[in-house]
């Protein structure tokens, strides 16, 4: 072995005065950072193995542990940062692409944080959600082209294309069984049912145990077509065609063979141990008219009973692409911003490809309105919705609902260590190791998800009430309720909002 050029990014700091050597840290670390020295009767830590997932910190009963960013540094260089140098070292050592997971962590502008929400003062009253109804129910899907009346003049109501009804405009975004654990899926499924919303299978198929959650499931059809069969399509409330995802636009997926075991293999309908490779494009979609064919194939296959979602990554030309999708027969467009999470992505792609969801959403919503087709399709956006204010802003910019992935995982215990690709998730989420999977008890997981979304719902209601709005549909596209701060003219123009003070 030659020289290890890399030094650990994080250090495990143990307060020896507080440590009682109960060894919980040791037992709970799948990376084997901690060990007990029976000779010296002390706990030791190997920083180089630490991924900073905080499992040990969270479980240490005496709060004896913390993890700090190392202050070991190469010579300070604003251009050749420690990260940049370290990555070169790593690649010079391995010859491989850099892999990482979860969303883009780079310091690009976060537009949500440069948008402010309005409230009523004097001229119209704010509405108290504790006293008055405050509605967050919403529907996703197409609206009929025109109204019809039957012979006696009453309105025909069954010409409505299939819709998804949401009691709160938040859905759990696609995360496949395989990339996340059975218990994570069960938590999402149960929470979706309790909340009156939907979770999404991702490209991992639908485990037989979860067919019972079908009415709250969006089944995904992605380029690898894993786990897709008739019953699967019919089991879901909607079908999502995944073209791309924000974390890695233009890139396919790769779930290594070691994760394709047991139920994962069966659910994906591929042999155990074989790599699950999702091609970068759908090889039957090289153009927009091909998409239309797939949309209608799926509609045919499910007797026009399921809305079809087309999910794309937010890329430069997103407005035009969305317009094409809206005309393809799709009922819902899902747009995933560049901060969206993933179980594994090439680091360079994750950090450099795609555009912010805020701008993509504003551009798409406005474009579809200009083309007068906004009513033909619903818009769901994801790619780092972090809190209820982000949701309010997204809806005011024009979204019908939002997808949350990372936030949902955080609720389940994810600490964003961004090491999903290792398969050793200490929180039982991004792993298939039975001893780790069991760390996520769906009784707890689903409850935490329900708590999170319910809390956000309350906050959304509170903010809506403040604006004098008592129904989420009156917020949708209501950009007057937003103002920008610290944004330039172009950004304001794209977002379609005024600057604060205007």
């Amino acid at each position, binding site marked *: 072995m030659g020289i290890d050029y890399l030094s650990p990014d994080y250090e495990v700091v143990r307060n020896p*005065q*507080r*440590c*009682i050597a*109960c*060894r*919980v840290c040791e*037992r*709970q670390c799948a990376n084997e950072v901690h060990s007990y020295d029976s000779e010296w*009767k002390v706990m030791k830590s190997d920083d180089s193995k630490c991924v900073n997932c905080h499992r040990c910190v*969270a*479980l240490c*009963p*005496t709060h*004896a542990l913390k993890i700090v960013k190392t202050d070991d540094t190469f010579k300070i260089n604003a251009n050749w940062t420690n990260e940049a140098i370290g990555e070169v070292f790593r690649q010079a050592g391995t010859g491989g692409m850099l892999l990482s997971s979860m969303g883009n962590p780079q310091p690009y502008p976060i537009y949500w944080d440069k948008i402010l929400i309005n409230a009523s003062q004097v001229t119209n009253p704010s509405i108290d959600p504790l006293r008055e109804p405050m509605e967050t129910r919403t529907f996703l899907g197409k609206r009929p082209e025109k109204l019809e009346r039957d012979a006696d003049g009453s309105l025909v109501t069954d010409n409505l294309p299939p819709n998804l009804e949401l009691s709160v405009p938040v859905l759990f975004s696609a995360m496949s069984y395989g990339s996340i654990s059975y218990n994570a899926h069960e938590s999402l499924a149960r929470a979706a049912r309790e909340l009156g919303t939907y979770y999404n299978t991702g490209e991992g198929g639908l485990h037989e145990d979860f067919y019972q959650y079908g009415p709250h499931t969006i089944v995904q059809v992605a380029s690898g077509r894993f786990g897709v069969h008739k019953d699967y399509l019919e089991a879901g409330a909607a079908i999502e065609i995944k073209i791309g995802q924000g974390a890695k636009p233009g890139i396919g997926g790769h779930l290594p063979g070691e994760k394709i075991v047991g139920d994962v293999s069966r659910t994906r309908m591929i042999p155990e141990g074989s790599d699950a490779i999702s091609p970068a494009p759908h090889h039957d979609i090289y153009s927009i008219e091909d998409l239309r064919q797939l949309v209608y194939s799926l509609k045919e296959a499910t007797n026009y009973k399921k809305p079809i979602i087309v999910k794309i990554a937010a890329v430069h030309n997103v407005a035009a692409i969305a317009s094409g999708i809206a005309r393809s027969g799709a009922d819902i467009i899902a747009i995933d911003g560049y901060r969206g999470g993933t179980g594994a992505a090439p680091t360079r792609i994750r950090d450099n490809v795609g555009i912010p969801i805020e701008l993509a959403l504003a551009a798409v919503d406005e474009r579809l309105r200009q083309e007068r087709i906004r009513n033909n399709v619903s818009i769901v956006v994801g790619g780092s919705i972090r809190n209820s204010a982000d949701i309010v802003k997204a809806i005011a910019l024009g979204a019908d609902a939002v997808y949350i992935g990372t936030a949902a995982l955080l609720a389940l215990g994810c600490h964003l260590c961004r090491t999903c690709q290792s398969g050793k998730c200490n929180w039982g989420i991004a792993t298939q190791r*039975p*001893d780790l999977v*069991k*760390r996520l*008890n769906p*009784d*707890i997981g689903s409850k935490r998800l329900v708590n999170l979304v319910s809390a956000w719902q309350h906050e959304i209601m509170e903010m809506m009430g403040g604006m004098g709005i008592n129904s989420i549909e009156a917020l949708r596209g209501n950009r007057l309720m937003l103002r920008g701060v610290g944004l330039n003219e172009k950004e304001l123009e794209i977002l379609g909002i005024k600057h604060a003070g205007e």
Partner: protein
Amino acid sequence: MKRVYVNEKWCLGCHLCEYNCAFANSGCDDMVKALKDVQIYPRIQIEQGNGINFAVNCRHCEEPLCVKSCITGALSVQDGVIHVDQDKCVGCYTCILVCPYGAVMPGPTGGVVQKCELCTNNSSGEPACVKGCPNRAIVFEER
């Protein structure tokens, strides 16, 4: 009556219950002070092996063999909780001989036995093992 139930499906074998038990019964309000550099004698104990883990503590049987067998009368049932009067106990270990769960054990000094009393004998309130279980593998419920 509320009892402690174990669901081994969710037990991680982290042993926190043991430490929380030892702390709750230490009479000390600082876990570090209570447990640092000492051998712990918890009243709940983890069994583990082959990827299976579970905690065992007193079941508070309705027909408690330990109480019936106790030669001193130190073991008694109080509001459904099997209580040991350590003052009375002489450490004959007849209860250890009969408990089908292996849930009665010698105390730290050996002269008397100890067992889970659902934290009715300390200031924890709810059983400390349950409160501290990170994965709801032990619950305290009426069933």
